[in-house]
């Protein structure tokens, strides 16, 4: 029969092409029907006699391929998924374990990524945000002038010069974030205000939610401004969300303003994460732009680039005009040196498509670090899942072998495994995204301070979905690939044989498992080291003694602008007010200050002492300030009631000042001279005392040179006072009593206060969050690693049951068997912890700037973490090792 078959050396070209095109089909379909299809095609092609017929056959064939192949793929996918669902249903505990593990891992990652996206990646909700630039001084103003806010970069006179002369922007505006007083006299509340100059809403392309926006014509009028806007939140909260009426007026900063519009929900101006209540036009307090103070750096200027302009071109343009602008806006009262520095400033345009954010500056690094941590935890969890899957795959060796023996293809098997873990990953990701919605809100809530939580738009956008999808695909591959690689090694006949014996070829699996566990140990060490560093750092911060009393202090802020008091009587009035506060039961001590320590405020003066010219932090304080704040006097005397407006100018300096200006010698009796600044003429102060070094405006920053002078000699006293009050009473209780007393003794004084310690701790929320989360992830990582090690040892003991039985039969003692098992664990630990130590040292260095008084390579931390993990791992191994020692020789041999 064979002889009658025509021998065909080569197939016709058309058939070869068609065979090649069959590659678009899934492998199984091709294997099954490819040959037959090619034969049919060849038959038809041969039978065709004309070119037209052949062309038609080709068109039909190609059309058939194009329409049928995708269907076959879809059918195959559905079949794989159906099979996967069936397989997972049979093993619900396994499926649930994997899905929950993945959901937690992916959820934590997504939550942190959501925060990063909201804070740093998302564009402002305005028209064409990529066209927005901020105008700033190149390199900053280096403390020149007076600045009251993180965002304030320029003075208003500079802003008006830019507004009138620039050609780079199609529109520009200035803004400032601040507070406003809402209401009248005793009913006054403080609210967050957005101050604007120019057409902010027009430039941003933001339409008001209701009413009309504050436009160019509303701003820069002589004070007070007649019109204002409220935020969507305020409108909902305080105005019931009803339509605006012409009679809607608010008393803002003591002036009545008509509310003409409501800003849209989610609009926070240029500052991401900071909600405001009212929008108030900047007005001109002295009637004209020319009369504005020139040393107040209190606005931020934003422009929209002209069509075709780049930020570089705008910078070149601003740079060319800078010299003239700074020349024309020189503030009065500065030394020649200061003025020369001012005139040297240059402006540049910086793109701000995502707005500006103090939160971003503060937490960006921490969040990325946290994302790294959660990523590692997810990776470690994936390793455990891979082990779980491997164990399950081993249990399914027989099934795999049977399917291979029946002619099943390996790609089909691989697809099956991928379908299973794909299904698990999708379920885990969906649950994870849902979980992340709660987690990210908890994160934001844990960043809340006395001023409330940040307002961030946590919406799910494509970035978040892309991130979650990538995370789940990667984990799916990470834990799903292991069994696939394994399946490739299985021999149909070998596995059948092995499975018939109830044993499988698992040497390869054991090796993979050991490698996974070693990697896990290394990663867990990195995370535990991170946890210890951040927890330690926060503990040191929280208990750090800054040299200033932190607890039992209430900061009272009093204003009496409405009370007519002659300037020369202000000091007497202030002292009377403090005396009245002191007389309140529960008050131990009280003193005024011009600068609240440790909360970020800063007040610098240029100073000359003898031949040394430098700068120091200057504070004017009332008598008993040092006693109130627990600051230790080292030498000389403190400031007393006898230091008055009329007495000699005196000052108390700190030890750093003595070191900086007097080379460590006692500065007592010497005279320091301040450099002239607007309202602060050059003045001589005789040094009468030295106090111990304390922190100045930041717990973490080193101590600068500091000078204290009597409040009575403050050159620029106004109708307000900041009073540090020492008491054992809670701040709110104390303030109620004080307000009641002050109403009697000093009618017309408005007062409010807050707890000093709580405000300091508010500044530590970032560190607290890092410590909390790093600690949590460190603990999770250690747990995951221990579970991994336990699984490995338990499996190893199970696998070597027979060998252990033989050893026991040959006379090995129980302890020898235990030692044998633990030796293996120790080896893996050594490899894992060795690698981990190197990785941890590298990783910790990247966190160095976020740590307080803990070195990133603190040997105690590294050693402690390694010891902790090793101890936990050995403890977890003890149970299976002990079980190994109990293997009865008879029983083990009978198993075979």
């Amino acid at each position: 029969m064979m002889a009658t078959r025509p021998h065909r050396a080569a197939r016709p070209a058309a058939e070869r092409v068609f065979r090649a095109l069959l590659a678009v089909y899934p492998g199984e379909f091709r294997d099954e029907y490819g040959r037959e299809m090619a034969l049919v095609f060849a038959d038809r092609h041969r039978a065709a006699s004309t070119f037209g017929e052949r062309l038609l056959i080709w068109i039909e064939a190609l059309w058939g391929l194009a329409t049928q192949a995708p269907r076959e793929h879809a059918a195959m996918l559905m079949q794989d998924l159906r099979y996967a669902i069936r397989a997972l249903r049979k093993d619900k505990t396994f499926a649930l374990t994997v899905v929950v593990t993945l959901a937690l891992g992916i959820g934590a990652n997504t939550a942190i990524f959501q925060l990063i996206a909201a804070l740093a990646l998302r564009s402002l909700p305005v028209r064409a945000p990529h066209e927005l630039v901020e105008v700033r001084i190149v390199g900053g103003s280096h403390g020149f002038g007076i600045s009251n806010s993180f965002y304030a970069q320029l003075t208003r006179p500079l802003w008006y010069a830019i507004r009138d002369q620039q050609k780079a922007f199609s529109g520009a505006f200035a803004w400032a974030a601040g507070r406003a007083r809402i209401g009248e006299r005793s009913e006054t509340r403080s609210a967050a205000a957005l101050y604007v100059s120019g057409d902010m809403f027009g430039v941003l392309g933001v339409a008001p939610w209701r009413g009309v926006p504050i436009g160019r014509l509303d701003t820069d009028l002589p004070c007070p401004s007649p019109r204002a806007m409220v935020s969507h939140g305020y409108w909902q909260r305080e105005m019931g969300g009803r339509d605006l009426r012409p009679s809607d007026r608010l008393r803002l900063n003591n002036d009545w303003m008509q509310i003409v519009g409501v800003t849209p929900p989610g609009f926070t101006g240029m500052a991401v994460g900071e909600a405001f209540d009212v929008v108030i036009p900047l007005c001109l307090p002295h009637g004209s732009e020319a009369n504005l103070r020139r040393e107040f750096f209190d606005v931020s200027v934003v422009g929209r680039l002209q069509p075709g302009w780049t930020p570089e071109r705008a910078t070149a343009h601003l740079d060319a005009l800078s010299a003239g602008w700074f020349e024309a806006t020189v503030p009065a009262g500065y030394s020649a040196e200061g003025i020369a520095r001012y005139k040297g400033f240059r402006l540049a345009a910086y793109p701000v498509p995502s707005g500006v954010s103090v939160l971003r500056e503060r937490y960006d690094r921490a969040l990325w670090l946290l994302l790294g941590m959660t990523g590692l935890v997810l990776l470690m969890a994936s390793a455990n899942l891979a082990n779980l899957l491997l164990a399950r795959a081993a249990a399914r060796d027989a099934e795999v072998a049977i399917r291979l023996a029946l002619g099943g293809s390996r790609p089909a098997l691989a697809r099956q495994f991928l379908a299973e873990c794909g299904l698990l990953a999708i379920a885990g990701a969906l649950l994870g995204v849902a979980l992340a919605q709660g987690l990210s809100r908890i994160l934001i809530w844990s960043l809340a301070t006395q001023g409330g939580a940040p307002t961030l738009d946590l919406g799910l956008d494509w970035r978040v979905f892309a991130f979650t999808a990538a995370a789940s695909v990667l984990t799916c591959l990470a834990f799903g690939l292991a069994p696939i690689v394994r399946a490739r090694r299985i021999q149909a006949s070998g596995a059948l044989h092995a499975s018939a014996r109830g044993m499988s070829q698992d040497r390869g699996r054991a090796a993979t498992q050991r490698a996974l566990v070693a990697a896990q140990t290394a990663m867990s060490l990195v995370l535990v080291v991170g946890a210890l560093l951040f927890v330690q750092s926060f503990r040191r911060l929280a208990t750090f003694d800054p040299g200033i009393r932190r607890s039992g202090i209430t900061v009272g802020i009093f204003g009496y602008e409405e009370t007519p008091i002659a300037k020369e009587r202000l000091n007497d009035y202030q002292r009377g007010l403090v005396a009245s506060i002191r007389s309140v039961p529960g008050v131990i001590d009280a003193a005024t200050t011009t600068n609240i320590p440790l909360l970020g405020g800063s007040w610098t003066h240029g100073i000359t002492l003898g031949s040394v010219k430098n700068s120091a932090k200057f504070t004017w304080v009332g008598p008993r300030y040092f006693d109130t704040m627990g600051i230790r006097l080292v030498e000389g005397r403190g400031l007393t009631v006898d230091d008055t407006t009329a007495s000699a100018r005196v000052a108390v300096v700190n030890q750093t000042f003595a070191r900086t200006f007097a080379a460590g010698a006692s500065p007592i009796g010497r005279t320091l001279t301040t450099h002239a600044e607007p309202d602060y003429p050059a003045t001589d102060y005789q040094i009468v005392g030295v106090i111990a070094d304390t922190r100045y405006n930041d717990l973490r920053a080193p101590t600068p040179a500091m000078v204290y002078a009597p409040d009575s000699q403050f050159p620029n006293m106004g109708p307000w006072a900041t009073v540090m009050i020492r008491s054992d009473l809670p701040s709110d209780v104390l303030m109620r009593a004080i307000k009641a007393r002050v109403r009697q003794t000093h009618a017309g004084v408005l007062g409010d206060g807050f707890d000093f310690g709580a405000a300091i701790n508010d500044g530590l929320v970032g560190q607290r969050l890092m410590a909390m989360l790093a600690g949590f992830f460190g603990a999770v990582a250690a747990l995951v690693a221990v579970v991994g090690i336990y699984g490995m040892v338990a499996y190893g003991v199970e696998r070597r049951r027979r060998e252990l039985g033989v050893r026991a039969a040959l006379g090995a003692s129980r302890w020898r068997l235990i030692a044998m098992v633990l030796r293996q664990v120790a080896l893996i630990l050594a490899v894992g912890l060795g690698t981990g130590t190197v990785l941890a040292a590298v990783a910790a260095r990247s966190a160095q700037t976020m740590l307080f008084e803990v070195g990133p390579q603190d040997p105690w931390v590294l050693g402690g973490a390694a010891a902790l993990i090793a101890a936990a791992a050995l403890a977890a191994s003890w149970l299976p090792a002990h079980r190994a020692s109990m293997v009865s020789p008879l029983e083990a041999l009978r198993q075979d």
Partner: protein
Amino acid sequence: MSPRPVPVEDSPDSFLPLPRDTFHILVSLADRDRHGYSVMLDVAERTDGSLRLSPSSLYAAIKRLLGQGLIVELAERPDPEHDDERRRYYQLTPLGRRVAKAEARRLERLLADARATGLLPKRG
């Protein structure tokens, strides 16, 4: 390898109506076992060339019919009338035959209805 769902006690009616290609393939296998090309030629001949199956649509249908248990695969054998290359032959199963009959009857009834309402001329 793929696990194929094999309907056990399926009633022929549950398969109806059959897709056009499927019915033609079953009809073509009704008188004898055929290989793919033979099915294709037979269908083309019976429809005067108006239904041309491409290799892709033919084998997609065959795969489905095999899965549904309406046809079975026979061992490969050469086709002496053709080029003698070994080909895979297909055969109607008893279920396949019942399904094809049921579909034919369904079409017959449709035809009868069309005649009854005068849509088609009554049979002479």
